[in-house]
């Protein structure tokens, strides 16, 4: 068994607002081992980004309340002071964000921004740091890194900026790389390249990756394990193969069904999950997905625990439906030809 880098145990993140307490993340647990890729999938507002930002200490605020533990190599990050947390950010845990167009500071050169990240943690002089920046840009596939290192962000295309962001996130050789929807703002052709790049660099840098996305297609290639989040909670957790071939939660079926498929007849190529995610201030009682779930029945007013209900150990879900019923009915949603979507 390889080294366990990160253990998130019953993490909750609540924000006090004028409208009430927002339970953005509610009882999330997972582990991450070196060399592995964990996918966290869910709609907007499901709490996946808040989970990721909390690992980095970026959600710290007077109105934020944390519960549970985030142990990085055995140390609880939630208990660290802001100053102590600085040593982890960028150094032990690197992060890439959704929109590369706005994530780089427009008034500084790409190289300066990478050098800044290097010098924040390593005592090297500017020349060495810049040399490393060039090296990093080369590794992420920027052509002519020696001259492009002096470009400003607006001289880079979206894909190149995301590559530069990756170079920056990896500049101090972190053990964990968090990618928060790294491909959402990019062209489809670039998406695949970026995913591949992250996957390759993970091996080069011998680190682990948390890949956050709303698109199961993005993690289909590279993830080892996948968490499906809904309304701040994990609703299904399984190894990638099991999640794709034996999904247990009707919400997961909806996500799988909403991947556009060209092998379906035209009207059914793209499905949507009807309705909107619930409010995380006044979440419905019982199963949070119940109001949108076509399979809901009486028992769903009580919230199911996240537990193992199938033969495969480690495959957890939150659904009361009978496993055989689910296996019989899920295909209608995932690759439906009736047009009915979960």
């Amino acid at each position, binding site marked *: 068994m390889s080294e366990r880098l990160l253990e998130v145990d019953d993490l909750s993140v609540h924000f006090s607002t004028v409208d009430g307490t927002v339970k953005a993340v509610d009882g999330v647990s997972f582990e991450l081992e070196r060399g592995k890729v964990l996918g966290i999938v869910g709609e907007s507002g499901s709490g996946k980004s808040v989970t990721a930002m909390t690992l980095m200490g970026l959600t710290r605020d007077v109105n934020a309340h944390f519960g549970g533990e985030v142990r990085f190599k055995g140390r609880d990050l939630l208990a660290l002071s*802001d100053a102590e947390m600085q040593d982890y950010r960028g150094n032990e845990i690197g992060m890439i964000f959704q*929109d590369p167009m*706005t*994530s780089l*500071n427009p008034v500084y050169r790409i190289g300066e921004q990478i050098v*800044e990240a290097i010098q*924040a943690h390593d005592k090297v002089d500017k020349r060495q740091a810049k040399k490393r920046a060039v090296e990093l840009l080369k590794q992420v596939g920027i052509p002519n890194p020696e001259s492009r290192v002096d470009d400003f962000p607006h001289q880079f295309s979206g894909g190149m900026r995301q590559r530069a962001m990756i170079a920056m996130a990896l500049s101090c050789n972190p053990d964990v790389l968090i990618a928060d929807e790294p491909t959402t703002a990019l062209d489809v052709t670039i998406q695949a390249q970026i995913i591949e790049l992250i996957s390759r660099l993970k091996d080069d840098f011998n680190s682990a990756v948390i890949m956050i996305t709303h698109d199961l297609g993005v993690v289909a290639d590279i993830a080892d394990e996948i968490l499906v989040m809904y309304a701040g909670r994990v609703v299904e957790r399984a190894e990638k193969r099991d999640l794709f071939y034996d999904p247990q939660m009707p919400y997961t079926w909806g996500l799988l069904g909403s991947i556009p498929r060209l092998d379906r007849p035209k009207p059914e190529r793209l499905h949507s999950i009807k309705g909107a995610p619930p409010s995380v201030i006044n979440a419905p009682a019982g199963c949070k997905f119940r109001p949108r779930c076509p399979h809901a029945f009486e028992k769903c007013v009580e919230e199911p625990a996240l537990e193992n209900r199938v033969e495969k150990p480690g495959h957890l879900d939150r659904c009361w439906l009978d496993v055989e019923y689910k296996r019989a009915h899920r295909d209608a949603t995932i690759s439906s030809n009736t047009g009915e979507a979960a």
Partner: protein
Amino acid sequence: MATFLVRRTIGAILVCIAVTFIVFLIFIVVPGGDPAQRIAGKNATPQNIINIRHSWGFDQPFYTQYWDMLKKMFGGNLVSYTNQQNVLTQIVQGMPATFSLTVGAGVIWLFFGILAGVLSAMTAGRLSDRVITVLALIGISMPVFWLGIVTRYYLAEGGLVSWFPDGEYVGILQSPSQWFSHMILPWLVLAVLFIGFYGRVLRGNILDTINEDYVRTAKSKGLTPRRIMVKHVLRTSLIPIITLFGLDFAAVLGGGAILTETVFDLHGVGQYAALSINNFDLPPIMGVTMYGAFFIVGFSMLVDLFYAYLDPRIRPT
């Protein structure tokens, strides 16, 4: 770059000419200002006035008059209607006072404006932020003429406490210490308004910038809060302040601090402008307007150049 400069310079000249033309038009449209009557004085005979009108060219069509005035202005031969003094000499005499006022007040208002903005943004919502906000609003709301008179009345010589000399300007070469003590009150009074205003603008800018994605990126790199604030937040938040400062500074330098100069009797260009307007005296008004327009236009050009330096996105590549 060269084309930019040429284009802007041509534009600047056109603006200056347009400004003088508008001032001239307003002057001949506004009733009650027959300059011949003023020049002739109270006991002039009608024949006197007609003679003056003819010899000064007031019977010419307005475009001829305007053209003559431009020629005189650029030749430095503009002469007041009221006291026949040379306008250029008067403006040059007023410049040391106006420059002293502007530079000193500018330094004060820029420094304290930035300080107030940063402090209140960094403690947004807390007590210090609220105190600064209230003070800033008081500063913005207080009319300069009122604040000037009140401070002069209470703090200057002959008032309740005689901490400062009572008005007037003393040349810096004459006596640096006297110059300084004479300028303190005008500086502060003029700066108060701007401090409040700049503080408010900067506070808003900083709070906007703090939520930018690239600030989050900076945080995620593990930079210290101080470095994030200075290098990533302040750097971008200060850009609009540069515009404000450039234009405000130019306006005051161009004789725009009419009230401050008059209240403290500094005999600067602004006070000269006020005097000329009171006397309905066209040539000095034209002269001062031209002088002011020169600074406004010049500084807005400088601001544009500085902008390109600060923000690489608008730099010509």
